[in-house]
């Protein structure tokens, strides 16, 4: 996509200096809010990541004694899942890169509703406090991230911790909902003249589809969580069989949200990967329209496949057939994306800078995770594989490797634009390779554990599962050490004296954020850019 701007950069100096409180606590600037979101994501990832390393330490050997209480174990697995989804992947990709880049990419001065944007962040920050309370108070919240009743009702999870965790989902949900409204309004109304929908960068398409998914999915989660809270505290029995309710209803509502949620986490990463692949192949994206509409189709179909999470729950045989076929259909638009990325590289002049390494890693590992996804979509096979480590391996291949590789690709791609300083290329590559080895070592053996029949959410297991668990735990230590390399990279960026040019990636980077200086000034596009 080619774009030119005829704004002048002189006017940026007129911006008055704000104090710390005014700038960060009352921020209405999309870049500052984006930075806050990224900070939130770093904190969320650290807490969730430390929890995962603790879990892997416990699982390193059978009959291990690092966590001896089942309650503590369940609290940790619950918090790990919720933190990684709501306080790492979503704030990094949507709140973070979305806020930072979408207005610049479409040539808008800011988001449509700057104060709403601020509110949306602080709801999430409050939600983080609540989820931590839910982890730490008493025996914590021990129902797993899927929070299925009756385990989390007042009888089986007494205590306020579970209420804190449920309210944290409300806060994170409101935050996402307001953010989604803001992105939709911004993208539909504030594109620069000449930037038609069909010229819009793919990251903006990704965020737009994601925002619609949030808009439709989050209210369903909010309803289900409200019903849970009422069952717990106000004597209703939406999900209590003794009162005429049904736990299976919750599963339907949860996955009506939960399945779009997985696309909410991966679509923005798809957007980032498209930009990175195009930039470092020095070619425009192959099949742009196909790429954009593949995301729209994935988003749409993502809403009508939810019960594939319930193949072994109460669901009729014919429904299984439908949900299996609908789920398999998603493989086709996903295939379009994978092949289009490869076709973008075909004939290109590929440079293996750090963001490109993450993008290539993403493409390959996402194909692996997608392949096991096709396996799991088969209801008949899910009867064997549901809830065992094969499933754990599958969704960590698409999330721990898919979404988080997308996050790191975006980080290395844009950190210069955000800070004005380059990252150390060598250490970026060290980070990539160590993380790549670490996560593969952690998650690939889990396929075998699952095939052998090891169930998830077990703090102790039969001795026969010891071998592959040990390998996985060693992998998690490598991933943990790799994250220390990432922190060194962050340190090096923020202490660097080197200045970067506007477009430090050169000819391949064609979107509008490369037309403004690095770091991007506080206010961009005080004159409206025109896209030719």
């Amino acid at each position: 996509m080619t774009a030119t701007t005829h704004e002048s950069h002189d006017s940026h100096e007129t911006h008055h200096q704000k104090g710390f409180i005014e700038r960060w606590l009352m921020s209405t600037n999309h870049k500052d809010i984006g930075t806050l979101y990224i900070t939130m994501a770093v904190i969320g990832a650290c807490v969730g990541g430390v929890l995962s390393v603790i879990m892997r330490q416990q699982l390193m050997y059978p009959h291990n004694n690092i966590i001896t209480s089942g309650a503590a174990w369940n609290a940790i697995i619950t918090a790990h899942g919720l933190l990684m989804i709501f306080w790492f992947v979503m704030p990094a990709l949507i709140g973070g890169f979305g806020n930072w880049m979408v207005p610049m990419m479409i040539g808008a001065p800011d988001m449509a509703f700057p104060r709403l944007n601020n509110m949306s962040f602080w709801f999430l920050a409050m939600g983080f406090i609540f989820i931590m309370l839910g982890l730490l108070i008493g025996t914590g919240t021990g129902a797993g991230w899927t929070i299925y009743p009756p385990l989390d009702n007042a009888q089986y999870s007494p205590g306020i911790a579970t209420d804190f965790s449920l309210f944290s989902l409300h806060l994170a949900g409101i935050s996402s909902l307001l953010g989604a409204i803001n992105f939709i309004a911004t993208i539909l109304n504030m594109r620069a003249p000449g930037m038609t929908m069909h010229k819009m960068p793919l990251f903006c398409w990704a965020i737009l589809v994601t925002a619609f998914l949030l808009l439709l999915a989050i209210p369903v989660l909010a309803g289900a969580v409200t019903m849970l809270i009422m069952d717990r505290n106000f004597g209703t029995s939406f999900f209590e069989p003794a009162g005429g309710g049904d736990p299976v209803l919750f599963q339907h509502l949860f996955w009506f949200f939960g399945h779009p949620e997985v696309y909410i986490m991966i679509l923005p990463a798809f957007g980032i990967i498209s930009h990175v692949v195009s930039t470092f192949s020095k070619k425009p994206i192959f099949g742009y329209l196909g790429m954009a509409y593949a995301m729209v189709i994935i988003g749409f179909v993502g809403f009508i496949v939810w019960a594939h999470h319930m193949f072994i729950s109460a669901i009729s045989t014919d429904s299984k057939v439908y949900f299996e076929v609908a789920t398999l259909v998603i493989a086709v638009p996903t295939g379009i994306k994978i092949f289009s990325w490869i076709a973008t590289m075909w004939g290109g002049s590929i440079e293996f800078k750090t963001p490109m390494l993450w993008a290539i890693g993403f493409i390959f590992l996402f194909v692996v995770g997608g392949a096991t996804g096709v396996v799991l979509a088969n209801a008949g096979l899910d009867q064997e594989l549901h809830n065992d480590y094969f499933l754990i391996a599958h969704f960590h291949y698409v999330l721990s490797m898919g979404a988080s590789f997308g996050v790191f690709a975006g980080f290395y791609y844009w950190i210069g634009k955000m800070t004005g300083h380059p990252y150390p290329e060598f250490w970026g590559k060290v980070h990539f390779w160590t993380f790549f080895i670490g996560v593969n070592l952690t998650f690939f053996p889990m396929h075998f554990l699952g095939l052998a029949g090891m169930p998830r959410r077990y703090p102790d297991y039969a001795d026969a599962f010891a071998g592959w668990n040990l390998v996985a735990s060693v992998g998690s230590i490598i991933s943990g050490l790799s994250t220390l390399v990432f922190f060194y990279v962050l340190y090096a960026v923020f202490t660097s004296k080197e200045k970067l040019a506007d477009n430090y990636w050169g000819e391949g980077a064609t979107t509008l954020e490369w037309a403004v200086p690095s770091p991007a000034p506080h206010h961009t596009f005080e004159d409206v850019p025109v896209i030719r």
Partner: protein
Amino acid sequence: MKRSITSALGAAGLLALFGHMALAQATSTDPTAAANAYVNAPHNWQMWFPEAGSPLQVQIDWLMKFVLWIMTGVVVFVGILLAYVLTRYRASRNPVPSNVTHNTLVEVIWIVIPTLLLAVIVIPSINLIYSEADDSNPYLTVTVTGHQWYWEYNYSGVQGGLDYTSYMIPDNQIQPGQIRRLSVDHPMVLPAGEKIKFIINSADVLHGFYLPSLGVQRYAIPGTNLTQWTLIPKVGTYYGQCNQICGINHDAMPIEIKAIPLADYLNWVKYAQANYALNSFAPSLISSPLPVNKLADASSN
């Protein structure tokens, strides 16, 4: 009847000779001893499904191989394509990028071929779904009720009724021949070679009735009866575990199944009724939030 007791005794004696006396309470009168001859349990560094213990698991195993080979082909193809592109079009070898952004033919191909692959997968896959659902005409129906944290087995169809609970052997009481975290005090005992129907429900929270070597898995949901069938041709011991988070001892409610010859099974029913069965109204069910009539429904089945 007498003859089968003798044969069970004979089998037990033979097995004892071979050092296969597994259960703590196994005495020469234990009619389940035949099941100790073959133990289908996970083993270290296992990389594939357990040996199939039921016709359903044979089908699952086949379809898994079928789908996984196709998907492995896809992954390898994409991997090779990626490797080729990255080598052939690296900047040092191809300094001037092309500007091609469209090619209708390849775009159609990469829609049509994946669709065909999926169609190839879907047909046997749907057959498997219907196979799994066919629980008609069982020889025996066992109602399985999940509890925090044990299983309750109700043989509603047998003369005199039979209902008992099954707890994991705690780690510090494991005897030689038992498997830590998989062996239980009172295994479920089934006649080998007969079709069995499980009616699965729960007395408290969700549980998962998961038997990987038999291709059986269903949630145990309070207030709902789910069904699943199996048939175990080979006399032996099979293991499973709870597979849906159910509280602090989720990892401590395994399932142990002993499939024994029909004659032994009939003896075992009497043995169990005399030795470890609860009375026909299990106290744990009366106190549970699950309406007792749910189980009555099941037993009328």
